[in-house]
Structures are given as C-alpha cells and as structure tokens.
C-alpha cells in the first residue's frame, strides 16, 4: 500500500542557526582522546588513554598524554598533538623560570593560568583542550580545566577529549567527594575503560598517575587488564 508522507518543512525557519552562530562553532571537533583528573585529599589522580590517530590510522598506540610541567604539576593533553606539545613546552619553560625566580615550587593555579594565557591568546590557531592537575603546599591537590577557547575553571573532577562525552553520566553518578587515592585510581580506570570501549578515537592502554606531596606514582593498565563491561 503506497502512502505519501509529508516531511517536515525544512526551508523556512525563523531560528535558523546559520545567522546566529558563526560557522566554526557549528562544526564537530573531534579530539580523539579520553583524559581525566580527580582531586582527593592530599593530591590528584590523572589518567588518559594512549591512542594518537591521523585519520583512521593509529599513529601511536602507546602515547603518553600525561606530560610533566614541573615536579608536582602535570597536564593531560587532548586535541591536536602538535599544538598541545608546543603549548606544553612553552608553559614548562615559563613555569620553570618563574619557579627559579620565586625560589619555591610553583602553584598549580599559576601553571593553569599560564596555559590559559597561551590558549586564549592563540585561540583561533590552536586546537587544544588541556587539564592541568597537581599538588602544591598552599591548596593541596587541584584540577583546573582549560578547554578549547581558553577558559579556565577549577573542578574537583574533570574529563576531556572526544571520549569524555560517553562518561559524563558515569562520572556524575560515581564521583563522590572525599574519596581516597585508591578509590580515585579505581574510578579513573573504570571511566577510561568505558570511554575507550565506546569511542573509536580512544584506546590502547590506560595510563594513570597519582601526584602527592611525597611524589609521583605512575601506573599502566594494559588492554587485557582493563575492566570489562560488555553485555552482549
């Protein structure tokens, strides 16, 4: 039985998006990655997947996206690998110089603001979403997120990259303030595993690091050791 269906009138629309919002804001930006950071009492836990892609080819399947900026301050990089490496190098230099002048370990807030200054000034040219996390004597463990565009905000827990969309719900429901370091590591491992399973641009191994006053502890969770959630 033949039937004719009226499709929705697509030509006229008073609220057409093309005039109200510039072209670049309408495009999907994929930053093939999942990164995250969580504060706990005494430090932070940071994590990332390990996949770098050029189109459909995985250029590096064991990438380290957790980059040291100073002794107790790290950044998690998402977006263009070239842009984030360049910005991280710039900030490492600036922060190192500042720390020598001050004759003290630098504050995480300072590092985060240096990232913001570069990312905001060159916002049109850069494609970089960065999470800055670390420990300092004044405020303990802190996580600052500097997404694309160059805003800065401190959050107890933050996720970024293309894989992050899939774990917002998991993060909102599973994060609780006052977790211990081990609980934070477990939470990050699960969240990364879930994102890596759903996002085609995230995968490989899960790299984690815990930063406290005492120092740094790095962990790698290999692909076959990641928690499995399949229910097929």
């Amino acid at each position: 039985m033949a039937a004719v269906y009226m499709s929705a009138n697509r030509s006229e629309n008073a609220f057409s998006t093309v005039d109200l919002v510039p072209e670049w804001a309408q495009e999907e930006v994929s930053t093939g990655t999942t990164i995250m950071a969580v504060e706990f009492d005494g430090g932070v836990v940071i994590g990332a997947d390990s996949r770098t892609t050029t189109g459909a080819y995985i250029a590096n399947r064991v990438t380290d996206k957790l980059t040291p900026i100073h002794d107790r301050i790290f950044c998690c990089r998402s977006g263009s690998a070239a842009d984030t490496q360049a910005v991280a190098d710039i900030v490492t230099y600036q922060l190192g110089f500042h720390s020598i002048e001050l004759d003290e370990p630098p504050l995480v807030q300072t590092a985060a603001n240096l990232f913001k200054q570069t990312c905001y000034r060159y916002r049109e040219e850069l494609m970089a979403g960065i999470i800055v996390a670390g420990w300092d004597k004044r405020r303990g463990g802190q996580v600052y997120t500097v997404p694309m565009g160059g805003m800065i905000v401190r959050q107890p827990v933050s996720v970024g990259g293309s894989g992050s969309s899939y774990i917002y719900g998991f993060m909102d429901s599973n994060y609780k303030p006052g977790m211990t370091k081990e609980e934070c590591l477990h939470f990050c491992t699960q969240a990364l595993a879930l994102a890596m399973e759903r996002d085609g641009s995230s995968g490989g191994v899960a790299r984690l690091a815990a930063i406290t006053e005492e120092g740094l502890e790095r962990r790698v969770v290999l692909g076959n050791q990641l928690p499995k959630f399949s229910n097929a």
Partner: protein
Amino acid sequence: MEIDFMDSQIKGVSTGTTILAVTFNGGVIIGSDSRASIGGYYVSSKTINKLIQVHDRIFCCIAGSLADAQAVTKAAKFQISFHSIQMESPPLVKAAASVLKELCYNNKEELQAGFITAGWDRKKGPQVYTVALGGMLLSQPFTIGGSGSTYIYGYADAKYKPDMSREECLQFATNALALAMGRDNVSGGVAHLVVITEEGVEHVVIPGDKLPKFHDE
C-alpha cells in the same frame, strides 16, 4: 546505537532528546525526557510525551524530527492494529518494530526520525528493538537513544545487568535519564517512564525536582 548528531541539524521542531528502553525480569521499561526544542535555542514544549502507545502492550519512543515521528507513528499504529485484527491475536513486538522499520527504510531520504520499540508479547516476553535513522532494525536487551544518550553510554554499560528486578530497573532508568538531562541542554523537563508487563501497563512520571541529584547539584 548510533550517535544522534543529526539532531542539531534538524530544522523545525525536534526532540533533541534522551530515550531508553530496558528489559528486566518479567517486563520492560521504556522512558524519555519531555523537552521539544527548535534548533536548541527555544524550548517549544516542556512537557511533551514521547512515549507513544502503538498497541496494548507495545510502546515506542521517538527521537529526531517531531513532525516525521508523529507522521510515522500514526501510520504504524494503523497498520499494527489492522494486522492484529486480521491475525485475531495481539501483535508481536517484533512485528510492530518491523512496521516502523519498513516505513523508515522506504522513506529514508525524506525522514529524520529514529525509534525505540519496546513491549511484551506471549511468544518472547519482554523485548526491545531499535530502528535507527536509515532504517536498521536491531534487537537488544537494552538501548539508549537521542542526543542525550551520548553522555550516558558509560553509565549504562557499567550499571546494566541482565535479569534485574522491577525496582532495580526503575532506578537504573531514572538515574540514566536524570544524568543525561543534567548534561544535555536539549533534554529536560520531566522523566516519563512506562512499565510494561504481562499484567498491564503502568505510567510513572517523575517531575524535575524529584529526580535523583548528583554530587555537584
């Protein structure tokens, strides 16, 4: 379960939305938010019902262009009830999903709507079917859809287990909807849930302020 990025490109009223359907021990729960918007800038309805009853024990929920979805479900409802009268028995959930699939596939150029069909029938008990944008039909133990579903893939993968009880399933569906509505700006309003079992159909509505709250709210 494809990502519904088409939502932002739909002109006219669209149900940028969160929909889901989950089977449990003895039945199925189908749920959705209640927001309809134009291009993500204007909420044209805060209390729209996206759970359409196509037969006594079969519901479907819609995502995408509201006009397309209404047109398709109207035609599907007719076809299913006609089929049911001819066969002199309640229709199979698979049959209802198939009807929707035929309509979506044969008109794939013009339509921009996806569906989740869920229900109970005597042959296979509780079932959930997804009909995606181009007309693919898939049977799954549970499924999520709409623009808000991207944010709860992780949560759903982690928390779903087969053979839940009715209460556990209700909690799972409510939490999932609340989490998605919290992150997706084109999903919101109240949470509509329908529990379908052999005994009957029960509609549960949870207003916005009674939804579960999470750590940062």
